[in-house]
């Protein structure tokens, strides 16, 4: 509940850099209360770099005793105390010791004049009445004429009574004019006696005659903070409790109001019985409201600052040129629409900056395969000091350098302190993000501070086309946005004919530094240029807003980009940033996996989820996620089965709209897939092994090795199991979301058409058994094989699910089905054919329980991969191609993948035996493999082995143990890692009628909390090792959840359940109470 009388929205949105306030009555009730609560919140603000300024009439000793002494630490240097009504300013040094920064010293003559004025007033009143007046002389540079000496220290809360009593005293004593007349006398004698700049104020009890007032404190702030640090007035907040008139006099805080410093926000927390002057917000609520507002500022600063939790941070300390491209990949920011690598803004020879847009494919030349085009680099920025560019290339110049990827907020922070040869130290900070809330918005803040010199600083920031590797889109038009302001690049892909427009507009906050602005257009790009004469410690912030649109999005991307850049600039960077933080918080609210007891695993889980979130795009169902997401170009942005089999589950259970868009991408590429099948004279569809936006096959047919050898690539033709990946993903989405619209409009067709392919692809032998010949399973070390069990069984499963889809559509949605049936020319006889194929598909069980991976596998030369555990290259490289082909070496989970996907078709004994058999023969030559082995191991209770595989999967990018993270992160491995946690360690199994789980956590994990979506409902699981599972069911509806091995239980919405571990197994869920019950 608010302590303030009115809501003051800016306090939650505007991070003030200077907060100045009256003390007594504003920050605290009076000078005797415990100030610890207010000290605590203000200290937090100081730690965020906010300048806290106290403006008071009392002396420093009083404030120090009550408040300043409670604070110690380097942040105390941000505290300033303006005391004695503008006479003195005290700051603090690095040891937190007070330092007088300013003091108005009165001359003897001025002191004598002050005495004379006070005494003249006293004599005048006493001469014309019976009222006795006291003078307080011992105040620095002022005198207090006490109109009611018998009431010492009246509290501010009794101002009304004080007024009444003082007036009564004066008038009863015969001084009929009362307080006002006393005030007028002070003004009169000040002028008559020659105190030319005397300041007269009143707090009712006193008429004060002084040399300064609170306006001098504000002037000091403007001169020493606003001006020297270049802090705009708009970033200053001044609070008091008496701005409005009291007893006909201006309030004691009125002098802090400076109309000639426009943009400062003034807030009164006082009662203000006579209202407040224009330009002042009356929040009321007293010190409680003050503390509340400060707490809101703290919350705001927390949002706008880097996350504290280290498991959400990737940090590079210093600069490591050798690892630069790897760092760029891992530190990519993105929002699904685009990804921008974490390159250095100014670039070094090692840099490989890159911004990739999902779906923006082109061909380097006619008939070449499509690949993602790299658009002009929007982070490009160079900083010059007196004409010399700041650079990291000379390591001696680097005093500090740090890049931090904040995965919680999707922000890349960079801090850099550079020392030039002549000792000039420049502090530079960058912040950049791709808005998750607004996919076309990119923003960057550049902060430059000359620490110890004055000189000319120039910042050039723009959109640059040139880069080193990959496939770059060429600019077609470069210009300013309008009237010499902002810059714009419009580019066009050569063959696919997309237009890409990037508009940039930068702004400098209206501080006191004068800048010169101009734009540049040259061959390699466009830029905005800011130049200014800087003073030591003066801060200058440039906010850069970039908007990107393509003709894939709308017909006129140039117009949209231009207008949006202005729109973003008008809103300001903090507003976009807050939106970004909220958007990420929203995503993490369902995607976060919280692991207690293992910070390393927590970092891996966060890293995986972060990169998956940045890759998924719920707004565009014409794109899906490529093998290296938008973090690098080595896979050309091609989309593999990785998307459907490895990444999709993350989205199904944490963000169904993205999962839906990914499946709709498959639906929209059906024409390409139909053509693929037709080219093979087969029915249905065959999805491209490597796909772009068209659905056409993009796998190269061959590559030329450096030796000149032509190597044929068979995956495009042979890895037809991609069809089952699309079908599996479709089915998983359907059973988990119950998204009827998707299923009836797209899902059913995907299942039926993929099944039709298999029905026409199988070959029937004389015994009526169906085979799939000349195929390649997930194990790519054995390229053309017959009866790959993974393909056979997944194809049969695909056919069964298609039959389920037909039955469901026919019964539940007959009208829609009728249209679909006609569209695809479905014949019910196909159901009979499917039934025959599925029930007679060749299933190998010739060697006891061990499934032969493909026909003839058992005859190959045996191998135990543990004999080759220590090696510095992939196992197939060590063995050589010829030896690999004739050996039982398996590249990646093949039969074991089957044990995971079709677990219900095998007994636990079969799963265990096959897992052990293939585990010894799998080289994990693919990043997709360790997590699947870890998942099945976890389900089998082989927790130590599962944990080892989990580590292997978790470090693929973070330790760069693939050696090629520089080309982008391994998205399938990240999706696999997530699946290992959820499907493996949590033991989640999704069935048509409900969700099962059976947690088996690694020993180190004390607790695991996850959130999953099931049928639109939010399920929050809190799993405590060997103790209990607490499940909170969301409000949407009933759900069926069960312990694996037991029956499903129907659980009520808005309810908390608990399942206990009895020492050997998990017991059923028991209702605990309503949501929130413990």
């Amino acid at each position, binding site marked *: 509940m608010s302590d303030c009388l009115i809501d003051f929205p800016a306090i939650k949105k505007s991070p003030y850099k200077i907060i100045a306030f009256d003390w007594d009555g504003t920050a605290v009730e009076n000078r005797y209360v415990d100030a610890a609560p207010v000290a605590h919140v203000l200290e937090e603000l100081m730690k965020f770099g906010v300048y806290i300024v106290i403006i008071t009439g009392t002396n420093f000793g009083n404030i120090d005793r009550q408040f300043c002494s409670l604070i110690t630490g380097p942040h105390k240097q941000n505290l300033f105390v303006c005391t004695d009504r503008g006479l003195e300013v005290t700051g603090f040094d690095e040891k937190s010791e007070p330092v007088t920064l300013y003091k108005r010293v009165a001359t003897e003559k001025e002191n004598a004049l002050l005495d004379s004025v006070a005494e003249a007033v006293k004599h005048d009143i006493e001469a014309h009445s019976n009222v006795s007046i006291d003078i307080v002389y011992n105040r620095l540079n002022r005198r207090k004429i006490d109109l009611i000496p018998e009431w010492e220290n009246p509290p501010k809360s009794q101002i009304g009574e004080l007024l009444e009593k003082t007036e009564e005293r004066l008038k009863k004593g015969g001084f009929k004019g009362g307080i006002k007349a006393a005030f007028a006398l002070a003004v009169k004698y000040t002028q008559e006696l020659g105190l030319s700049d005397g300041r007269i104020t009143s707090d009712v009890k006193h008429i004060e005659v002084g040399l300064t007032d609170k306006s001098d404190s504000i002037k000091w702030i403007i001169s020493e903070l606003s001006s020297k640090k270049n802090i705009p007035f708009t970033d200053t907040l001044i609070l008091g409790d008496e701005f409005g008139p009291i007893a006909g006099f201006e309030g004691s805080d009125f002098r802090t109001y400076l109309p000639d410093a426009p943009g400062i926000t003034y807030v009164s927390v006082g009662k203000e019985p006579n209202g407040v002057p224009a330009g002042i917000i009356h929040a009321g609520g007293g010190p409680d409201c003050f503390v509340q507002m400060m707490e809101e500022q703290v919350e705001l600063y927390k949002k706008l600052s880097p996350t504290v939790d280290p498991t959400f941070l990737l940090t590079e300390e210093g600069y490591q040129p050798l690892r630069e491209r*790897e760092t760029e990949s891992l530190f990519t920011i993105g929002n699904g629409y685009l990804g921008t690598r974490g390159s250095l803004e100014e670039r070094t020879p090692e840099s490989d900056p890159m911004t990739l847009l999902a779906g923006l494919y082109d061909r380097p030349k006619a008939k070449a395969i499509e690949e993602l085009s790299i658009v002009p680099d929007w982070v490009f920025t160079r900083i010059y000091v007196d004409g010399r560019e700041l650079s990291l290339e000379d390591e001696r110049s680097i005093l500090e350098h740090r890049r931090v990827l904040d995965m919680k907020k999707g922000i890349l922070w960079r801090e850099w302190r550079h020392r030039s040869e002549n000792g000039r130290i420049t502090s530079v900070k960058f912040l950049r993000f791709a808005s998750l809330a607004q996919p076309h918005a990119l923003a960057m803040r550049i902060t430059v501070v000359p620490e110890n010199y004055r000189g000319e600083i120039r910042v050039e920031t723009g959109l640059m086309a040139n880069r080193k590797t990959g496939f770059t889109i060429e600019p077609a038009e470069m210009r300013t946005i309008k009237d010499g302001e902002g810059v714009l690049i419009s580019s066009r892909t050569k063959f696919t004919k997309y237009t890409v427009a990037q508009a940039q507009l930068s702004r400098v906050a209206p501080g006191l530094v004068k800048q010169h602005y101009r734009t540049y257009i040259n061959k390699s790009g466009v830029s905005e240029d800011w130049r200014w004469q800087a003073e030591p410690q003066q801060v200058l912030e440039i906010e850069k807003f970039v908007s990107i649109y393509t003709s894939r999005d709308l017909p006129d991307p140039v117009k949209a980009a231009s207008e949006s850049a202005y729109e973003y600039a008008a809103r300001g960077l903090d507003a976009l940033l807050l939106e970004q933080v909220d958007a990420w918080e929203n995503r993490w609210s369902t995607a976060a996996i919280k692991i207690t007891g293992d910070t390393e695993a927590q970092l891996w889980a966060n890293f995986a989820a972060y990169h998956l979130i940045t890759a998924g795009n719920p707004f565009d169902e014409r794109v899906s996620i490529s093998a290296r997401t938008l973090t690098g170009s080595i896979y050309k942005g091609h989309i593999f089965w990785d998307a459907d089999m490895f990444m999709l589950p993350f989205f199904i259970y944490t963000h169904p709209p993205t999962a839906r868009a990914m499946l709709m991408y498959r639906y929209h590429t059906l024409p390409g897939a139909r053509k693929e099948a037709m080219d093979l004279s087969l029915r249905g569809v065959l999805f491209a092994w490597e796909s772009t936006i068209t659905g056409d096959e993009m796998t190269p047919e061959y590559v030329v090795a450096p030796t000149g050898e032509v190597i044929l690539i068979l995956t495009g033709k042979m890895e037809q199991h991609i069809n089952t990946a699309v079908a599996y993903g479709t089915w998983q989405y359907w059973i988990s979301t119950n998204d009827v619209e998707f299923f009836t409009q797209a899902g059913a067709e995907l299942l039926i058409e993929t099944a039709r392919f298999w029905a026409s692809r199988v070959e029937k032998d004389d015994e009526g058994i169906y085979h799939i010949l000349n195929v390649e399973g997930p194990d790519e070390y054995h390229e053309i094989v017959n009866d790959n069990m993974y393909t056979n069984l997944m194809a049969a499963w695909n056919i069964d699910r298609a039959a389920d889809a037909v039955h469901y559509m026919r019964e539940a949605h007959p009208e829609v089905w009728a249209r679909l049936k006609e569209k695809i020319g479905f014949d019910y006889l196909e159901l009979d054919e499917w039934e025959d194929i599925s029930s007679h598909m060749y299933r190998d069980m010739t060697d006891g329980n061990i499934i032969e991976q493909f026909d003839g596998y058992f005859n190959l030369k045996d191998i135990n991969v543990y004999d080759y555990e220590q*090696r*510095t*290259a992939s196992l197939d490289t*060590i063995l050589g191609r010829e030896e690999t082909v004739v050996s039982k070496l398996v590249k990646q989970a093949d039969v074991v993948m089957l044990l995971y996907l079709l677990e219900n078709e095998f007994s636990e004994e079969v799963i265990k035996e096959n897992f052990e058999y293939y585990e010894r023969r799998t080289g994990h030559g693919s990043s997709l493999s360790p997590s699947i082995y870890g998942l099945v191991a976890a389900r089998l209770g082989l927790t130590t082995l599962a944990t080892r595989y989990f580590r292997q999967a978790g470090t693929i990018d973070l330790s760069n143990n693939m050696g090629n993270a520089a080309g982008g992160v391994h998205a399938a491995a990240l999706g696999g890692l997530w699946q290992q946690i959820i499907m493996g360690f949590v033991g989640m199994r999704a069935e048509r009628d409900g969700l099962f789980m059976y947690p088996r956590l690694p020993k180190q994990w004390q607790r695991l909390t996850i959130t999953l979506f099931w049928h639109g409902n939010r399920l929050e699981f809190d799993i405590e090792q060997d103790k209990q599972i607490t499940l909170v069911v969301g409000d949407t509806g009933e759900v069926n959840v069960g312990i694996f091995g037991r029956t499903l239980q129907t659980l009520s919405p808005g309810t908390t359940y608990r399942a206990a571990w009895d020492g050997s197994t998990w017991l059923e869920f028991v209702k605990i109470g309503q949501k929130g019950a413990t």
Partner: protein
Amino acid sequence: MRNRPAVIIPLDGSEIAAKAFGAAEAMAKIMEAMLYIVHVTEEQLPEEELLKKLKIGRIEVRDFSLHQIVGKDVVGEILRFAASVDTQMIVMSSHGVSYNPKRLLGSNTMGIVQRAINPVMVIRPDMKNLPGPDWKPQKMLVPQDGTPTAAAVMTQVYRLSKLTGADIDVLNIGVSGRRPPTEAGAIPAPRYLDHPRYDWTGWASEFIERFYAQRPPGVELRLYEREGEPANVMTSFATENNDDLIALGWHGHLEAGRAETVKKLLRETDRPVLLIWSRE
């Protein structure tokens, strides 16, 4: 004296030690350096007598300096001398006066390669084609295991290649039975290849990219990947590809269990080996 680049050849008066003289002259010419012929002796000899003792015959380089240092600690004296001039390279035969081909290195060479912070070129006296004064390597083999330590040698290699115009063969060797390097920032050959056509080229370009930025213009850099026992692979690779020199980064440890590849290479190759020390 410090301003002039220096190449040092320590000689002990044996014919075996003098076999490295041609290579030293060649390096001095290439680097436009002063050639310091250093002999540590217990008894000072007249210059003419010393030249005779060192068995170096005609000296082809113009700028050379004969230094006779009286002392007993041969290795220490040579290293002290190396520290007193701007030493670019020490060139020496693998063995000296007490030549025993069964031993990896003679005692002085052993001491110097282990303690020198300057690049040391080791010449086996039994090499078929001993480098002469006009020798100029055309191709250099630089084995790299993807570690920043190994990459650090490229600065020296580039300097030499810039002076000689030699091309560089970068060789990565996949090894079974050895753990991948654990050094932070290392990129050994990928243990996994999702799709070799992309991952392999991605890794290769990254591997090269790490050296490429500092590459002098005109120097050709080729990356090769081989599998097998590293020293054997280096030796046979150098032969097959006509590499004139093998340059290796190392940490200066020849004790048991350390630098096995360096040791084996020094025993087996018939190419000059340039050892470039870097801090561990």
